[in-house]
Protein backbone atom coordinates (compact mmCIF):
# COMPACT_ATOMS: atom_id res chain seq x y z
CA UNK A 1 0.00 0.00 0.00
CA UNK A 2 1.31 3.42 -0.91
CA UNK A 3 1.44 5.99 1.87
CA UNK A 4 3.16 8.81 0.03
CA UNK A 5 3.67 9.53 -3.63
CA UNK A 6 6.22 12.12 -4.75
CA UNK A 7 6.16 13.10 -8.39
CA UNK A 8 8.72 15.25 -10.18
CA UNK A 9 9.80 17.22 -7.11
CA UNK A 10 11.95 20.30 -7.65
CA UNK A 11 13.54 22.67 -5.13
CA UNK A 12 15.02 25.91 -6.44
CA UNK A 13 16.99 28.69 -4.83
CA UNK A 14 17.50 32.03 -6.55
CA UNK A 15 21.14 33.03 -5.98
CA UNK A 16 23.44 35.76 -7.27
CA UNK A 17 24.67 33.41 -9.98
CA UNK A 18 21.15 32.53 -11.13
CA UNK A 19 18.69 29.87 -10.00
CA UNK A 20 20.26 26.89 -8.24
CA UNK A 21 18.26 23.67 -8.41
CA UNK A 22 18.97 21.61 -5.32
CA UNK A 23 16.41 18.93 -6.22
CA UNK A 24 15.70 18.25 -9.89
CA UNK A 25 12.75 16.06 -10.69
CA UNK A 26 12.75 13.43 -7.94
CA UNK A 27 9.94 10.86 -8.01
CA UNK A 28 9.31 7.95 -5.68
CA UNK A 29 6.59 6.27 -3.68
CA UNK A 30 6.73 5.16 -0.08
CA UNK A 31 4.85 2.21 1.37
CA UNK A 32 4.96 0.64 4.81
CA UNK A 33 8.67 0.15 4.42
CA UNK A 34 12.10 1.47 5.22
CA UNK A 35 13.23 3.58 2.29
CA UNK A 36 16.84 4.76 2.39
CA UNK A 37 18.13 7.89 0.65
CA UNK A 38 21.90 8.03 0.23
CA UNK A 39 24.14 10.32 -1.76
CA UNK A 40 27.02 12.67 -1.30
CA UNK A 41 26.95 15.89 0.64
CA UNK A 42 24.92 18.53 -1.16
CA UNK A 43 23.11 16.03 -3.38
CA UNK A 44 19.70 17.20 -2.13
CA UNK A 45 18.78 14.55 0.46
CA UNK A 46 17.74 16.96 3.22
CA UNK A 47 16.01 19.30 0.79
CA UNK A 48 13.93 16.39 -0.50
CA UNK A 49 12.83 15.55 3.05
CA UNK A 50 12.10 19.14 3.97
CA UNK A 51 10.24 19.83 0.72
CA UNK A 52 7.78 17.02 1.46
CA UNK A 53 6.85 18.84 4.67
CA UNK A 54 7.01 22.22 2.91
CA UNK A 55 9.76 23.31 5.24
CA UNK A 56 11.93 25.03 2.64
CA UNK A 57 12.63 28.56 3.76
CA UNK A 58 12.00 31.43 1.34
CA UNK A 59 13.35 32.41 -1.13
CA UNK A 60 13.51 28.67 -1.84
CA UNK A 61 10.74 27.36 -4.11
CA UNK A 62 9.14 23.90 -4.07
CA UNK A 63 7.48 22.58 -7.21
CA UNK A 64 6.08 19.14 -8.00
CA UNK A 65 3.47 17.42 -10.12
CA UNK A 66 2.27 16.07 -6.81
CA UNK A 67 3.19 15.18 -3.23
CA UNK A 68 0.26 12.95 -2.38
CA UNK A 69 -0.61 11.74 1.10
CA UNK A 70 -3.86 9.77 1.39
CA UNK A 71 -4.99 11.12 -1.96
CA UNK A 72 -4.42 14.77 -1.00
CA UNK A 73 -1.78 16.89 -2.69
CA UNK A 74 0.20 18.50 0.12
CA UNK A 75 1.11 21.38 -2.16
CA UNK A 76 -2.57 22.40 -2.27
CA UNK A 77 -3.04 22.53 1.50
CA UNK A 78 -3.29 25.75 3.49
CA UNK A 79 -0.49 26.47 5.94
CA UNK A 80 -2.88 25.60 8.82
CA UNK A 81 -3.73 22.24 7.32
CA UNK A 82 -0.05 21.66 6.63
CA UNK A 83 0.80 22.27 10.28
CA UNK A 84 -1.62 19.48 11.19
CA UNK A 85 0.10 17.16 8.75
CA UNK A 86 3.45 17.99 10.34
CA UNK A 87 2.11 17.48 13.82
CA UNK A 88 0.19 14.27 13.28
CA UNK A 89 0.88 12.49 10.00
CA UNK A 90 4.51 13.07 9.12
CA UNK A 91 7.32 13.67 11.60
CA UNK A 92 10.84 14.65 10.70
CA UNK A 93 14.04 14.25 12.71
CA UNK A 94 16.27 17.03 11.44
CA UNK A 95 19.92 16.53 10.65
CA UNK A 96 20.83 19.25 13.17
CA UNK A 97 19.37 17.81 16.38
CA UNK A 98 20.40 20.42 18.90
CA UNK A 99 19.46 23.18 16.50
CA UNK A 100 15.89 21.88 16.47
CA UNK A 101 15.60 21.84 20.25
CA UNK A 102 14.78 25.07 22.03
CA UNK A 103 18.09 26.12 23.66
CA UNK A 104 16.50 27.98 26.59
CA UNK A 105 13.98 25.33 27.60
CA UNK A 106 14.75 22.22 29.64
CA UNK A 107 14.73 18.96 27.70
CA UNK A 108 11.98 17.53 29.91
CA UNK A 109 9.67 20.51 29.46
CA UNK A 110 10.05 20.20 25.70
CA UNK A 111 9.23 16.50 25.63
CA UNK A 112 6.30 16.94 28.01
CA UNK A 113 4.92 19.86 26.02
CA UNK A 114 5.01 17.76 22.85
CA UNK A 115 3.36 14.87 24.66
CA UNK A 116 0.57 17.00 26.13
CA UNK A 117 -0.12 18.50 22.71
CA UNK A 118 -1.01 15.06 21.42
CA UNK A 119 -2.47 13.37 24.47
CA UNK A 120 -5.07 14.33 27.03
CA UNK A 121 -3.26 13.51 30.20
CA UNK A 122 -1.91 14.88 33.44
CA UNK A 123 1.50 16.46 33.84
CA UNK A 124 2.59 13.57 36.00
CA UNK A 125 1.63 11.10 33.31
CA UNK A 126 3.49 13.17 30.70
CA UNK A 127 6.57 13.14 32.89
CA UNK A 128 6.38 9.40 33.37
CA UNK A 129 6.06 8.89 29.61
CA UNK A 130 8.97 11.27 28.97
CA UNK A 131 11.20 9.16 31.21
CA UNK A 132 10.07 6.00 29.46
CA UNK A 133 10.85 7.49 26.09
CA UNK A 134 14.34 8.51 27.13
CA UNK A 135 14.94 5.04 28.50
CA UNK A 136 13.72 3.56 25.23
CA UNK A 137 16.49 5.40 23.38
CA UNK A 138 19.05 4.12 25.94
CA UNK A 139 19.55 7.29 27.93
CA UNK A 140 20.94 6.07 31.22
CA UNK A 141 20.09 8.91 33.60
CA UNK A 142 16.72 10.12 32.28
CA UNK A 143 15.85 12.06 35.45
CA UNK A 144 18.90 14.28 35.08
CA UNK A 145 18.50 14.66 31.33
CA UNK A 146 14.92 15.88 31.84
CA UNK A 147 16.29 18.73 33.94
CA UNK A 148 19.13 19.52 31.53
CA UNK A 149 19.25 22.20 28.85
CA UNK A 150 20.13 21.08 25.30
CA UNK A 151 23.74 22.32 25.57
CA UNK A 152 24.21 20.13 28.64
CA UNK A 153 23.81 16.83 26.83
CA UNK A 154 26.32 15.10 24.55
CA UNK A 155 26.02 15.01 20.75
CA UNK A 156 24.61 11.52 20.65
CA UNK A 157 22.20 12.21 23.51
CA UNK A 158 20.77 15.22 21.64
CA UNK A 159 20.15 13.03 18.64
CA UNK A 160 18.33 10.44 20.72
CA UNK A 161 16.17 13.08 22.44
CA UNK A 162 15.02 14.30 19.02
CA UNK A 163 14.11 10.79 17.96
CA UNK A 164 12.13 10.21 21.15
CA UNK A 165 10.19 13.44 20.56
CA UNK A 166 9.36 12.71 16.95
CA UNK A 167 7.73 9.44 17.87
CA UNK A 168 5.26 11.03 20.30
CA UNK A 169 2.55 11.82 17.72
CA UNK A 170 2.63 8.22 16.46
CA UNK A 171 3.21 9.38 12.87
CA UNK A 172 2.27 7.44 9.73
CA UNK A 173 5.48 8.57 8.15
CA UNK A 174 8.81 9.38 9.77
CA UNK A 175 11.50 11.21 7.83
CA UNK A 176 14.77 10.70 9.69
CA UNK A 177 17.67 12.82 8.42
CA UNK A 178 20.99 11.29 9.53
CA UNK A 179 19.33 10.21 12.78
CA UNK A 180 22.19 8.07 14.02
CA UNK A 181 25.30 9.78 12.64
CA UNK A 182 26.57 10.72 16.12
CA UNK A 183 25.84 7.38 17.76
CA UNK A 184 28.18 4.51 18.50
CA UNK A 185 27.26 1.16 17.05
CA UNK A 186 25.49 -0.34 20.05
CA UNK A 187 23.24 2.67 20.70
CA UNK A 188 22.68 2.98 16.96
CA UNK A 189 21.32 -0.57 16.88
CA UNK A 190 18.87 0.19 19.69
CA UNK A 191 17.58 3.30 17.95
CA UNK A 192 17.21 1.44 14.66
CA UNK A 193 15.36 -1.28 16.54
CA UNK A 194 12.78 1.25 17.73
CA UNK A 195 12.17 2.54 14.21
CA UNK A 196 12.05 -0.97 12.87
CA UNK A 197 9.31 -1.99 15.29
CA UNK A 198 7.23 1.04 14.29
CA UNK A 199 7.44 -0.01 10.65
CA UNK A 200 6.66 -3.66 11.35
CA UNK A 201 4.07 -3.34 14.12
CA UNK A 202 2.29 -0.13 13.27
CA UNK A 203 2.81 0.00 9.52
CA UNK A 204 4.72 3.25 9.59
CA UNK A 205 6.58 4.38 6.48
CA UNK A 206 10.18 5.43 7.10
CA UNK A 207 12.39 7.63 4.95
CA UNK A 208 15.88 7.11 6.27
CA UNK A 209 18.42 9.65 5.02
CA UNK A 210 22.00 8.63 5.63
CA UNK A 211 25.46 8.73 4.17
CA UNK A 212 26.30 5.39 5.78
CA UNK A 213 26.00 2.90 2.94
CA UNK A 214 26.65 -0.19 5.04
CA UNK A 215 24.04 0.83 7.54
CA UNK A 216 21.45 1.58 4.88
CA UNK A 217 22.07 -1.69 3.09
CA UNK A 218 21.63 -3.62 6.33
CA UNK A 219 18.68 -1.70 7.70
CA UNK A 220 16.50 -0.55 4.79
CA UNK A 221 14.29 -2.35 2.30
CA UNK A 222 14.91 -0.10 -0.71
CA UNK A 223 17.43 2.61 -1.45
CA UNK A 224 17.39 5.71 -3.63
CA UNK A 225 20.81 6.98 -4.59
CA UNK A 226 20.95 10.72 -5.23
CA UNK A 227 23.48 12.74 -7.12
CA UNK A 228 23.29 16.46 -7.91
CA UNK A 229 19.59 16.68 -7.05
CA UNK A 230 18.52 13.59 -9.00
CA UNK A 231 17.87 9.95 -8.22
CA UNK A 232 20.51 8.15 -10.28
CA UNK A 233 19.78 4.62 -9.12
CA UNK A 234 17.16 2.73 -7.10
CA UNK A 235 17.84 -0.73 -5.75
CA UNK A 236 16.90 -3.28 -3.14
CA UNK A 237 18.94 -2.44 -0.05
CA UNK A 238 20.54 -5.85 0.24
CA UNK A 239 21.73 -5.50 -3.37
CA UNK A 240 23.40 -2.14 -2.69
CA UNK A 241 26.84 -3.70 -2.80
CA UNK A 242 26.11 -4.93 -6.32
CA UNK A 243 25.02 -1.48 -7.49
CA UNK A 244 26.23 -0.67 -10.96
CA UNK A 245 26.19 3.10 -11.25
CA UNK A 246 29.80 4.35 -11.18
CA UNK A 247 28.81 6.96 -8.61
CA UNK A 248 27.44 4.31 -6.24
CA UNK A 249 30.55 2.17 -6.81
CA UNK A 250 32.71 5.21 -6.05
CA UNK A 251 30.88 5.82 -2.78
CA UNK A 252 31.38 2.21 -1.73
CA UNK A 253 35.09 2.31 -2.52
CA UNK A 254 35.77 5.45 -0.52
CA UNK A 255 35.05 3.80 2.85
CA UNK A 256 38.05 3.21 5.14
CA UNK A 257 38.42 -0.44 6.14
CA UNK A 258 40.03 -1.90 9.21
CA UNK A 259 41.31 -4.90 7.27
CA UNK A 260 42.85 -2.93 4.40
CA UNK A 261 45.00 -0.08 5.68
CA UNK A 262 46.09 2.45 3.08
CA UNK A 263 47.53 5.92 3.09
CA UNK A 264 44.94 7.62 0.95
CA UNK A 265 41.29 6.73 0.52
CA UNK A 266 39.77 6.59 -2.91
CA UNK A 267 37.84 9.71 -3.78
CA UNK A 268 35.10 10.06 -6.34
CA UNK A 269 36.07 11.00 -9.85
CA UNK A 270 32.90 12.86 -10.75
CA UNK A 271 31.61 12.59 -14.28
CA UNK A 272 29.52 15.56 -15.46
CA UNK A 273 27.28 13.09 -17.32
CA UNK A 274 25.93 11.80 -13.97
CA UNK A 275 24.27 15.15 -13.37
CA UNK A 276 22.51 15.35 -16.73
CA UNK A 277 18.77 15.00 -16.70
CA UNK A 278 17.52 11.95 -18.50
CA UNK A 279 20.89 10.19 -18.54
CA UNK A 280 22.21 8.05 -15.72
Amino acid at each position, binding site marked *: MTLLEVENLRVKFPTRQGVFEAVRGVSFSLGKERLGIVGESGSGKSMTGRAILRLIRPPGIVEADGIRLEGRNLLDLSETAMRKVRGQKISMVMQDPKFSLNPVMRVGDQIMEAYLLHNRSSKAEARRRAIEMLEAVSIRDPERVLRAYPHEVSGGMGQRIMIAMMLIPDPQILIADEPTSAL*DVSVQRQVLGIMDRLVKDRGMGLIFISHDLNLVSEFCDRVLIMYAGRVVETCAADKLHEATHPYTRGLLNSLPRLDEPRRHLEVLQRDPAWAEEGGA
Partner: protein
Amino acid sequence: MSVALRIEGLDVWFGDGRDRVDAVKEAGFEVATGESFGLVGESGSGKSTILRAITGLARDWSGLIEVEGKRIEGARRDRAFFKTVQMVFQDPYASLHPRHTVDQVLSETLSLHKLGDVDARVVRLLDDVGLGAKFRFRYPHQLSGGQRQRVAIARALAGEPDILLLDEPTSALDVSVQAEILNLLTDLRAEHGLTYLMVSHDLPVIGHMCDRLAVMKDGRIVEVMGVEALRRGEAREDYSRDLLAASVGA
Protein backbone atom coordinates in the same frame (compact mmCIF):
# COMPACT_ATOMS: atom_id res chain seq x y z
CA MET B 1 60.37 12.42 20.99
CA SER B 2 58.64 15.52 22.29
CA VAL B 3 55.22 15.51 23.81
CA ALA B 4 52.56 17.74 22.23
CA LEU B 5 49.84 17.02 24.75
CA ARG B 6 50.02 15.47 28.21
CA ILE B 7 46.93 14.73 30.30
CA GLU B 8 47.25 13.32 33.82
CA GLY B 9 44.64 12.57 36.48
CA LEU B 10 42.07 14.70 34.69
CA ASP B 11 38.68 15.11 36.36
CA VAL B 12 35.99 17.22 34.72
CA TRP B 13 32.59 17.86 36.24
CA PHE B 14 29.44 19.88 35.59
CA GLY B 15 26.78 21.25 37.93
CA ASP B 16 26.33 20.39 41.58
CA GLY B 17 24.04 18.57 43.98
CA ARG B 18 21.85 15.96 42.35
CA ASP B 19 22.67 17.38 38.92
CA ARG B 20 26.40 16.99 39.29
CA VAL B 21 27.90 15.01 36.44
CA ASP B 22 31.40 13.61 36.76
CA ALA B 23 31.95 13.54 33.03
CA VAL B 24 35.67 12.64 33.09
CA LYS B 25 37.41 10.72 35.88
CA GLU B 26 41.17 10.35 36.30
CA ALA B 27 41.87 10.36 32.60
CA GLY B 28 45.46 10.28 31.43
CA PHE B 29 47.34 9.90 28.13
CA GLU B 30 50.15 11.48 26.12
CA VAL B 31 50.20 12.46 22.49
CA ALA B 32 53.64 12.81 20.86
CA THR B 33 54.38 15.64 18.47
CA GLY B 34 53.22 14.58 15.02
CA GLU B 35 51.19 11.70 16.38
CA SER B 36 47.51 11.10 15.72
CA PHE B 37 45.64 9.82 18.77
CA GLY B 38 42.04 8.59 18.82
CA LEU B 39 39.34 8.68 21.51
CA VAL B 40 36.50 6.20 21.20
CA GLY B 41 33.73 5.00 23.50
CA GLU B 42 30.00 5.06 23.92
CA SER B 43 27.81 8.13 23.65
CA GLY B 44 28.06 10.24 26.81
CA SER B 45 31.33 8.66 27.98
CA GLY B 46 33.18 11.99 28.15
CA LYS B 47 35.09 12.19 24.86
CA SER B 48 33.96 15.68 23.87
CA THR B 49 34.41 16.85 27.45
CA ILE B 50 38.14 16.06 27.38
CA LEU B 51 38.57 18.23 24.29
CA ARG B 52 36.45 20.96 25.82
CA ALA B 53 38.51 20.98 29.01
CA ILE B 54 41.68 21.40 26.98
CA THR B 55 40.26 24.40 25.09
CA GLY B 56 38.79 26.00 28.23
CA LEU B 57 35.15 25.37 27.38
CA ALA B 58 34.57 23.05 30.33
CA ARG B 59 35.49 25.25 33.26
CA ASP B 60 35.47 22.88 36.21
CA TRP B 61 38.40 20.51 36.09
CA SER B 62 41.40 19.38 38.05
CA GLY B 63 44.53 17.46 37.19
CA LEU B 64 47.25 18.19 34.67
CA ILE B 65 46.92 19.46 31.11
CA GLU B 66 50.18 20.29 29.38
CA VAL B 67 50.43 21.65 25.84
CA GLU B 68 53.88 21.60 24.25
CA GLY B 69 55.42 21.41 27.71
CA LYS B 70 53.41 24.33 29.14
CA ARG B 71 51.05 23.65 31.98
CA ILE B 72 47.55 25.03 31.50
CA GLU B 73 45.46 26.45 34.33
CA GLY B 74 41.76 27.25 34.75
CA ALA B 75 39.56 28.09 31.82
CA ARG B 76 41.27 31.15 30.30
CA ARG B 77 43.26 30.55 27.16
CA ASP B 78 45.41 33.28 25.59
CA ARG B 79 45.94 34.01 21.94
CA ALA B 80 49.16 31.99 21.89
CA PHE B 81 47.19 28.93 22.98
CA PHE B 82 44.76 29.24 20.09
CA LYS B 83 47.68 29.79 17.73
CA THR B 84 48.89 26.35 18.83
CA VAL B 85 45.63 24.47 19.42
CA GLN B 86 42.44 24.58 17.36
CA MET B 87 39.28 22.56 17.68
CA VAL B 88 36.70 21.31 15.19
CA PHE B 89 33.38 20.79 16.95
CA GLN B 90 31.02 17.87 16.76
CA ASP B 91 28.11 20.13 15.96
CA PRO B 92 28.80 22.33 12.92
CA TYR B 93 25.40 24.00 13.28
CA ALA B 94 26.08 25.44 16.65
CA SER B 95 29.65 26.44 15.93
CA LEU B 96 29.04 28.79 12.99
CA HIS B 97 27.49 32.21 13.53
CA PRO B 98 24.15 32.20 11.65
CA ARG B 99 24.48 35.77 10.36
CA HIS B 100 28.09 35.61 9.19
CA THR B 101 29.01 34.56 5.68
CA VAL B 102 31.71 31.98 5.09
CA ASP B 103 33.94 34.85 4.00
CA GLN B 104 33.38 36.74 7.27
CA VAL B 105 34.04 33.65 9.37
CA LEU B 106 37.36 32.95 7.68
CA SER B 107 38.53 36.58 7.30
CA GLU B 108 37.87 37.32 10.95
CA THR B 109 39.74 34.23 12.05
CA LEU B 110 42.69 35.18 9.84
CA SER B 111 42.86 38.71 11.21
CA LEU B 112 42.53 37.39 14.77
CA HIS B 113 45.69 35.43 14.10
CA LYS B 114 47.24 38.53 12.53
CA LEU B 115 47.75 36.84 9.18
CA GLY B 116 47.98 39.04 6.08
CA ASP B 117 46.95 38.40 2.52
CA VAL B 118 43.46 37.58 3.71
CA ASP B 119 41.81 37.47 0.30
CA ALA B 120 44.14 34.86 -1.18
CA ARG B 121 44.16 32.82 2.01
CA VAL B 122 40.35 32.58 2.16
CA VAL B 123 40.30 31.24 -1.38
CA ARG B 124 43.11 28.77 -0.59
CA LEU B 125 41.33 27.51 2.53
CA LEU B 126 38.07 26.97 0.65
CA ASP B 127 39.97 25.04 -2.01
CA ASP B 128 41.77 22.98 0.62
CA VAL B 129 38.52 21.74 2.12
CA GLY B 130 37.01 21.03 -1.28
CA LEU B 131 34.43 23.81 -1.30
CA GLY B 132 35.82 26.32 -3.77
CA ALA B 133 35.24 30.05 -4.11
CA LYS B 134 31.59 29.80 -5.11
CA PHE B 135 30.67 29.14 -1.47
CA ARG B 136 32.52 32.19 -0.21
CA PHE B 137 29.58 34.52 0.28
CA ARG B 138 27.04 32.01 1.54
CA TYR B 139 25.45 32.01 4.99
CA PRO B 140 25.38 28.80 7.07
CA HIS B 141 21.68 28.16 6.33
CA GLN B 142 22.52 28.09 2.62
CA LEU B 143 24.89 25.17 3.09
CA SER B 144 24.23 21.47 3.51
CA GLY B 145 25.37 19.70 6.69
CA GLY B 146 28.60 18.47 5.15
CA GLN B 147 29.40 21.84 3.61
CA ARG B 148 29.11 23.50 7.02
CA GLN B 149 31.50 21.04 8.57
CA ARG B 150 34.03 21.82 5.86
CA VAL B 151 33.76 25.52 6.70
CA ALA B 152 34.42 24.64 10.35
CA ILE B 153 37.53 22.69 9.34
CA ALA B 154 38.73 25.56 7.17
CA ARG B 155 38.35 27.91 10.13
CA ALA B 156 40.38 25.63 12.36
CA LEU B 157 43.14 25.41 9.76
CA ALA B 158 43.19 29.18 9.15
CA GLY B 159 45.59 30.00 11.98
CA GLU B 160 47.99 27.19 11.01
CA PRO B 161 47.86 25.44 14.38
CA ASP B 162 50.26 22.68 15.56
CA ILE B 163 47.62 20.64 17.33
CA LEU B 164 44.12 19.94 16.05
CA LEU B 165 41.40 18.62 18.34
CA LEU B 166 38.86 16.97 16.07
CA ASP B 167 35.47 16.03 17.53
CA GLU B 168 33.69 13.68 15.11
CA PRO B 169 35.01 15.76 12.21
CA THR B 170 33.42 13.61 9.53
CA SER B 171 30.38 12.04 11.15
CA ALA B 172 28.12 14.59 9.44
CA LEU B 173 29.74 13.95 6.08
CA ASP B 174 28.99 11.48 3.36
CA VAL B 175 31.66 8.91 2.60
CA SER B 176 33.08 10.60 -0.48
CA VAL B 177 33.56 13.91 1.29
CA GLN B 178 34.77 12.03 4.35
CA ALA B 179 37.45 10.44 2.17
CA GLU B 180 38.46 13.86 0.84
CA ILE B 181 38.64 15.41 4.32
CA LEU B 182 40.54 12.47 5.81
CA ASN B 183 43.01 12.58 2.91
CA LEU B 184 43.39 16.30 3.47
CA LEU B 185 44.04 15.76 7.19
CA THR B 186 46.56 13.01 6.39
CA ASP B 187 48.45 15.28 3.98
CA LEU B 188 48.39 18.28 6.31
CA ARG B 189 49.79 16.19 9.12
CA ALA B 190 52.58 14.91 6.88
CA GLU B 191 53.41 18.36 5.46
CA HIS B 192 53.24 20.39 8.65
CA GLY B 193 53.97 17.77 11.29
CA LEU B 194 50.57 18.38 12.89
CA THR B 195 49.37 16.52 15.96
CA TYR B 196 45.80 15.24 16.11
CA LEU B 197 43.55 14.27 18.98
CA MET B 198 40.51 12.84 17.27
CA VAL B 199 37.15 11.66 18.61
CA SER B 200 35.05 9.32 16.51
CA HIS B 201 32.57 6.53 17.04
CA ASP B 202 33.58 5.11 13.68
CA LEU B 203 36.37 2.62 14.33
CA PRO B 204 37.43 2.22 10.69
CA VAL B 205 37.93 6.00 10.59
CA ILE B 206 40.03 5.86 13.77
CA GLY B 207 41.94 2.88 12.35
CA HIS B 208 42.65 4.85 9.21
CA MET B 209 43.73 8.07 10.90
CA CYS B 210 45.31 7.21 14.23
CA ASP B 211 48.49 5.61 15.52
CA ARG B 212 47.07 4.86 18.97
CA LEU B 213 43.71 5.21 20.66
CA ALA B 214 42.08 5.32 24.07
CA VAL B 215 38.79 3.57 24.81
CA MET B 216 36.47 5.43 27.20
CA LYS B 217 33.57 4.23 29.30
CA ASP B 218 31.64 6.18 31.96
CA GLY B 219 34.19 8.98 32.04
CA ARG B 220 37.21 6.70 32.44
CA ILE B 221 39.84 5.56 30.02
CA VAL B 222 39.65 1.78 30.18
CA GLU B 223 42.42 0.99 27.70
CA VAL B 224 45.01 2.59 25.44
CA MET B 225 45.99 0.52 22.43
CA GLY B 226 47.90 0.68 19.18
CA VAL B 227 46.19 0.73 15.83
CA GLU B 228 47.55 -2.71 14.96
CA ALA B 229 45.71 -4.21 17.92
CA LEU B 230 42.55 -2.41 16.76
CA ARG B 231 42.91 -3.84 13.26
CA ARG B 232 43.36 -7.34 14.60
CA GLY B 233 40.45 -6.85 17.01
CA GLU B 234 42.73 -7.51 19.98
CA ALA B 235 41.64 -5.68 23.09
CA ARG B 236 42.67 -6.41 26.66
CA GLU B 237 39.51 -5.20 28.37
CA ASP B 238 36.06 -6.76 27.97
CA TYR B 239 34.43 -3.45 27.21
CA SER B 240 36.82 -2.60 24.38
CA ARG B 241 36.44 -6.10 23.00
CA ASP B 242 32.65 -5.68 22.84
CA LEU B 243 33.06 -2.33 21.15
CA LEU B 244 35.37 -3.77 18.52
CA ALA B 245 33.15 -6.77 17.92
CA ALA B 246 30.08 -4.56 17.43
CA SER B 247 31.89 -2.36 14.91
CA VAL B 248 33.39 -5.09 12.84
CA GLY B 249 29.86 -6.45 12.68
CA ALA B 250 30.89 -9.79 14.07
